[in-house]
């Protein structure tokens, strides 16, 4: 489908039309500078809620806690899969989070594909919203290559006015979104909605210009090319940075919990009050927590906070990066923002680069 144009005043109508058949989660401001994704009854303008949400939209695909299956106990136990998937829309997902969802898609579809995740993913419509200016001081999407997004959304809205208002010479400014259609499902949604029109050649050109122009608003923040990071991390096992962080990091796990690409989990049983049955649940876990790698004999294979943090950084910029050919960090900056002791991801990476002596970028 050709790119579409949607008048800004019609955006609430798109929201309403999606709501007819789906549960809709959208982003809204909750207190100053604090945005969240939540189930909404009425339209909430994603343009107003600009900074990354406290928790990423991942929570609708990999819930913080969920039931894997139910069981009956006693002499003849039985198990029954718990299926709780319904059509849903995540409305107003930023490029970094779209990239993060694409990474989760890889995790759960390659090698031992996980139906739970994939079924939910299939039932999920993603309405993306483009970023035209830098959201807050912690993020670094352009650095890890996640500002531009080509797939992973059903439709992507780009505000056609935000960057170059000076070009809107007429007194009456037509406020509109440029819609990139990412999937067949996205096309169907727009056809059913019926209130968009094909973008003109001039509008396509304007969109390209906006995309080109916005780059100036984003800076590259690592001191070396991203592609060098696996090498930097692989050679940094004994780096003094980890020893310094050992003294600072609380091992609280917050950086994992807010991360859109973290997916590790714990598994446990919950028993009904009747004691006849229960459910096996999983819950987000965090590799920076003390007990993450403890075995029953008491051995802890990553005893120090520094080793656990080192593991986390290696997952982002070495282990999974080597596996998937791109960082497993989308630069949303949530981890740096949430950290009580102000451990900043970009800063840590740059310290490792500097100590390795290969900082070739300023």
């Amino acid at each position, binding site marked *: 489908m050709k790119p579409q144009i949607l008048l800004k005043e019609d955006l609430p109508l798109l929201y309403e039309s999606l709501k007819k058949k789906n549960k809709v989660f959208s982003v809204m401001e909750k207190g100053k500078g604090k945005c969240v994704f939540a189930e909404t009854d009425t339209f909430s303008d994603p343009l107003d809620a600009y900074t990354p949400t406290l928790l990423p939209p991942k929570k609708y695909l990999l819930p913080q806690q969920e039931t894997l299956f139910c069981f009956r106990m006693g002499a003849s136990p039985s*198990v029954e899969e718990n299926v709780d998937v319904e059509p849903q829309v995540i409305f107003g997902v930023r490029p970094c989070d779209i990239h993060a969802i694409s990474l989760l898609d890889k995790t759960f579809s390659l090698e031992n594909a996980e139906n739970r995740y994939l079924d939910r993913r299939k039932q999920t419509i993603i309405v993306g919203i483009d970023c035209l200016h830098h959201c807050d001081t912690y993020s670094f999407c352009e650095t890890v290559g996640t500002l531009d997004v080509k797939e992973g959304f059903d439709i992507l809205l780009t505000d056609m006015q935000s960057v170059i208002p000076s070009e809107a010479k007429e007194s009456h400014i037509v406020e509109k979104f440029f819609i990139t259609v990412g999937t067949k499902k996205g096309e169907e949604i727009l056809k059913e909605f019926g209130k968009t029109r094909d973008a003109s050649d001039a509008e396509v050109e304007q969109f390209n210009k906006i995309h080109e122009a916005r780059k100036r608003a984003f800076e590259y923040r690592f001191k070396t090319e991203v592609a060098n990071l696996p090498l930097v991390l692989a050679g940094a096992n004994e780096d003094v940075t980890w020893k310094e962080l050992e003294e600072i990091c609380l091992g609280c796990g917050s950086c994992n919990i807010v991360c859109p690409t973290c*997916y590790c989990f714990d598994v446990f049983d919950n028993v009904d009050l009747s004691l006849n049955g229960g459910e096996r649940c999983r819950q987000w*876990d965090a590799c920076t927590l003390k007990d993450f790698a403890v075995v*029953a004999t008491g051995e802890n294979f990553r005893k120090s906070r520094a080793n656990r943090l080192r593991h986390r950084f290696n997952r982002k910029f070495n282990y999974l990066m080597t596996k998937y050919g791109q960082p497993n960090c989308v630069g949303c900056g949530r981890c740096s923002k949430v950290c009580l002791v102000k451990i900043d991801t970009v800063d840590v990476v740059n310290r490792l680069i500097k100590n390795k002596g290969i900082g070739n970028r300023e």
Partner: protein
Amino acid sequence: MPLYIPTLAEIVQVRRLTALEKWFKIRTKDGVSFSYEPGQFVEVSVFGIGEAPISISSSPPPLNPLLTKEGIKGRSTLPSGNGTFEICVRKVGDVTTALHSLEEGAIVGLRGPFGKGFPLSQMKGCDLLFIAGGLGIVPLRSAINYVLDRRDDFSNITILYGAKTPAEILFADELFGWQQRKDIECEITVDKPDSGWAGKSGVITRLIPPLEIDAKRTYALIVGPPVMYKYVLMELGIKKIPEAQIYISLERRMKCGVGKCGHCQINSVYVCQEGPVFSYRTLKFLSEAI
């Protein structure tokens, strides 16, 4: 494939081995077939308590019926097949304690088998050195019986086993049976002998220096507690066994068994997928492994 949903299996036989360990024979329900290789593990569920990774301790039956006939001679247990297999569980926490409370006929949940076992077929014609510390005999027993069932396929076989005390020796009948056999060497040592103990005492590493090893044609298969590996590897290094011919099984925390939950990771490696058995050549490059 529902990755996390166990099938049901029945405990068909239970035996207490020591104060802390029990042996179970388990059969899949409704004739669900179950095939495995020595060194693999299963996830066993006690519903309402949880799930734990446990090594398979029996050995898969030989495919060739002739081999079966030959192999059973001089062997104290039959190979497990047709959906049955054996495990041995040490009581240390919630799930393992719950397993200990189960009796014959009880139903448990089962997932797996998972992971990669010992590459025994690649060791054909070679000398094998098995080194088991404590509970490490549980998975190694699978490999040992597999090899004994196919005795002619392998050259010299040496088994070293170390336990803390005589009372903690696992599969004692089988071990003493192996000591009687003329076609294999089997040495047992205990850290702390008691008055009735006539065998060797001292740590297991002491059994290695006296061995005559043809390093080039020897494979070492080692399973034991984490502390054991460093010292055993040092001794094997002195014997010049090539690192690629040393296989080690590692224990890590495991929640899923299918490469998703992240708990078992050593550096970039998922132990539940690429292990639990690794060659030392692989492990050497993993800073968090040993």
